[in-house]
C-alpha cells in the first residue's frame, strides 16, 4: 500500500512539474498576451493541482491535508479571477503600449 501511494505521488508530482514546464514554455513562446494567459492558467490550475494531489498521501491527516486542499482551492479561485481580469486588461491594450 505504501509503495502504491509513493508511486502515485511520484507520477502526480512529475505530471505537475511537467505542467509548470509547459506553462513556462507557453509564457515564453506564445505570440500574444491572451495565449500566454492560457499557458499561465494551465500551470496555475493543473500544475499546482497535480503537485498538491501527489503530496496528499505524504501528509498528516487531517490538518495538513486540509491545508493542502485549501491551497489548491485558493489557487483555483485566484487563477480564475486573475485570468479574467488580465484578459480584460490585455484586450484593452495591456496598459501602456511601448
Amino acid at each position, binding site marked *: 500500500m505504501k509503495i502504491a501511494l*509513493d508511486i502515485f*505521488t*511520484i507520477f502526480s*508530482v*512529475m505530471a*505537475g*512539474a511537467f505542467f*509548470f*514546464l509547459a*506553462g*513556462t514554455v507557453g*509564457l*515564453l513562446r506564445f505570440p500574444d*498576451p491572451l495565449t*500566454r*494567459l492560457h499557458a*499561465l492558467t494551465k*500551470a*496555475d490550475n493543473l*500544475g*499546482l493541482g497535480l*503537485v*498538491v494531489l501527489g*503530496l496528499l498521501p*505524504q*501528509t498528516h491527516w487531517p490538518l*495538513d491535508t486540509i*491545508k*493542502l486542499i*485549501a*491551497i*489548491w482551492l*485558493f*489557487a483555483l*479561485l*485566484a*487563477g480564475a*479571477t*486573475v485570468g479574467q*481580469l*488580465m484578459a*480584460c*486588461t*490585455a*484586450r*484593452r*491594450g*495591456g*496598459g*501602456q*503600449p*511601448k
Partner: protein
Amino acid sequence: MTMPDFLLSAAAFVLVMVALGLIRILRGPEDVDRMMAAQLFGSGGIAALLLFGVATEAKAVIDVALTLALLAAFASVAFVQGISRPDSDDTQETRDE
C-alpha cells in the same frame, strides 16, 4: 532515491522552470505580460514550498504556502485596478477590438 530526495528535486525543477518564466518580466513587452510572469512565479513558488515543506517535514512551510496562496491574486488585482483608469476610456473597452 528516497522520497524526500525526489520531492526536493521536484521542488528545484519547478523553481527553475518558473524562474525561466521570469524572462518574460525582462522582455515584456507590456505590463500585462510582466504581471503574468509574476503570477506564474507565485504559483510555482507555492508548489516548490509545498514540495520542500513535505520533504523536510517542516510544517510551518505549509502555512507560508497557505498565506501566499491566499494572497496570490492580490498583486494582480491591484495591478488591474491601477492600470485601468476610471476617468478615461474604460467605457469603450469592449467595442474597440
